[in-house]
């Protein structure tokens, strides 16, 4: 969680400083969801995510150097500078990609689930998507298909209260998106995703069910998006008090640190040590990205086909 938080904080700063071109969407405040779920996955399990997917990628075990380099548009990045933040992937760890299209990952993960079933392995496939995506048509098709075939899929909707600038309470027909699972004859579970242990518990159950061939689960991770939809979002749709109320009391990292401190697993010194270690790793990743070359312009014409 600390790595995700520091990565996102760094990305925000680098974007503001002009090092990262384009757009970035940060998941600060949502680390309990990404890390909690990915902590129960195996390296060979598949995962798709969204435009707000840095956290999922880090939690799945991605290489920070290659991630930062990709965000910088460098040749040494995961996608050789062709994808950027919203279109990043690492197939070596089963990370089948972030997706710039809202709900774009659900049909794909259904196919990964079908592939697992046809190849008769015990992998699972998990798709992170947002409350905004939950209102799109592909979600309906994917959940129905995964359910009738009992595919080893976990649909994890991260309800961060906002779809871009529109409140979920306005745009969603239900308060708990997990209740929609009933329409697909699959379990639906809502959890307070700023409590990483609650997420882990729910994810463990969903993953075990999928791995046993019992079918998909809809897991709703309720959380809050601390940053704007994108960096630079003027955020006219909410006020600072609202953000502060989540930031101060409900921060998933502080909450978990408190639990671990009470259980005497951690103390202030150890916590600081974790933050420092992560900071050093990220500093090295940023240095790697900064020192890396941009791709040659002509490389834009490579990689379209396996054979032309």
């Amino acid at each position, binding site marked *: 969680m600390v790595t995700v938080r520091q990565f996102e904080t760094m990305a925000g700063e680098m974007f503001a400083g002009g090092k990262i071109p384009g757009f970035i969407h940060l998941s600060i405040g949502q680390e309990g969801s990404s890390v909690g779920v990915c902590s129960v996955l195996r390296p060979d399990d*598949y995962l798709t995510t969204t435009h707000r997917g840095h956290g999922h990628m880090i939690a799945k075990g991605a290489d920070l150097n290659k991630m930062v380099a990709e965000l910088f548009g460098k040749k040494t*990045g*995961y*996608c*050789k*500078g*062709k*994808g950027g933040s919203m*279109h*990043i*992937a*690492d*197939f070596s760890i089963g990370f*089948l*990609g972030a*997706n*710039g*299209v809202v709900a*774009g990952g*659900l*049909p*794909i*993960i*259904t*196919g*990964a*689930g*079908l*592939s*697992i079933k*046809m*190849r008769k392995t015990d992998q699972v*496939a998990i798709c992170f998507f947002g409350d905004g995506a939950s209102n799109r*048509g*592909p979600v309906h*098709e*994917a959940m*129905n*298909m995964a359910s*009738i075939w009992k595919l080893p899929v976990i649909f994890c909707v991260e309800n961060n209260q906002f779809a871009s600038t529109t409140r979920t309470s306005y745009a969603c027909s239900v308060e708990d998106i997990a209740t929609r699972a009933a329409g697909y004859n699959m379990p639906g579970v809502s959890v307070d995703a700023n409590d990483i242990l609650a997420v882990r518990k729910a994810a463990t159950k969903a993953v075990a069910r999928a791995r046993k061939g019992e079918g998909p689960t809809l897991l709703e991770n309720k959380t809050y998006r601390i940053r704007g939809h994108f960096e630079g979002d003027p955020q006219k749709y909410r006020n600072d008090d609202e953000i502060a109320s989540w930031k101060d009391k409900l921060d998933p990292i502080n909450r978990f640190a408190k639990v671990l401190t009470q259980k005497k697993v951690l103390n202030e010194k150890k916590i600081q040590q974790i933050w420092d270690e992560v900071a050093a790793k990220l500093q090295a990743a940023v240095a790697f990205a900064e020192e890396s070359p941009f791709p040659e312009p002509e490389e834009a014409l*490579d*990689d*379209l*086909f*396996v*054979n*032309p």
Partner: protein
Amino acid sequence: MQERIMTSSGALAEALHEEMSRDESIFIIGEDLVSHAGIFGQFVGIPEKFPGRIIDTPISETCIVGSGLGAAMTGMRPIVDLHFSDFVTCAMDEIANQAAKIRYMFGAQVSLPMVIWCPDGAGLRAAAQHSQSLESWFVHTPGLKVVVPSEPADVKGLIKASIREDNPIMFFQHKKLFAKEGHVPEEDYIIPLGQAAIKRDGKDVSLLTYGSGYYLSAEAADELKKMDIDAEIVDLRTLKPVDMDTVGTSIKKTHRAVIVHEACLTGGFGAELTALIQSELFDYLDAPVTRVGAKDVPIPFSPPLEDFVLPSVSDVVNAVKAVTYR
């Protein structure tokens, strides 16, 4: 050589049997496949021979194509049956935003061995939403290859090549041509993508065509013969990549080109081919490149209306007469 006459749907089924026997990762996914062996009978024998590898889906085009994509990314080689090519619109995000882009935008980390099989075309009185020829949309989308066979042998050779490709393929097979018969080679017959065929030699004009346009051109060539006009027919077979070498060979001989396709004229593949010809072969032309295609309206239902909208043999003959100044 012993003729081995088969229909187009028979040629497709034979090719699929051969490929699915060769490679266990190949499977077919789509609507209404198992009980009817496909709505055009194109998958005859496959449900019995390859149980579990031809999969009936709900009516969910978005997720049918998307799940093919997810399977292709994770070690399988799906053939996605789109039922009617018109339904690509329901899966356009999966095709244009995902399939076409995933390899490129992820820096070539993954390959997508997937065939999207699209029965297309008009002439069956199926009207506006079940009759279109949409191939040029996909020619205009980098990251997809576009294949349009005409004769049964082409169906076999091109579907086998497409299945063996590690790239996403849009494969358009005309609904009205399923029953067309022709010689089909028995052996492991492969037509590499990007290879056109000169199917009729001629010296006066090149008819550049594909799909159902081939049969239209063949009929027109017979008519033209009676007028002492010797038409050469180039069946493009693959639109992307397009075989400009063969097009060039033909035009350097005939110095005249008429492009024939069933798709509506404006923005159709003929427009692209015309541009290529004028930039690469301008000095060899003795007449403007001319296009024959459907009129720019949706395909109407009533037979006299549909027949009027679709390109006809006489449209091809008249276009040839114009470029040969006859």
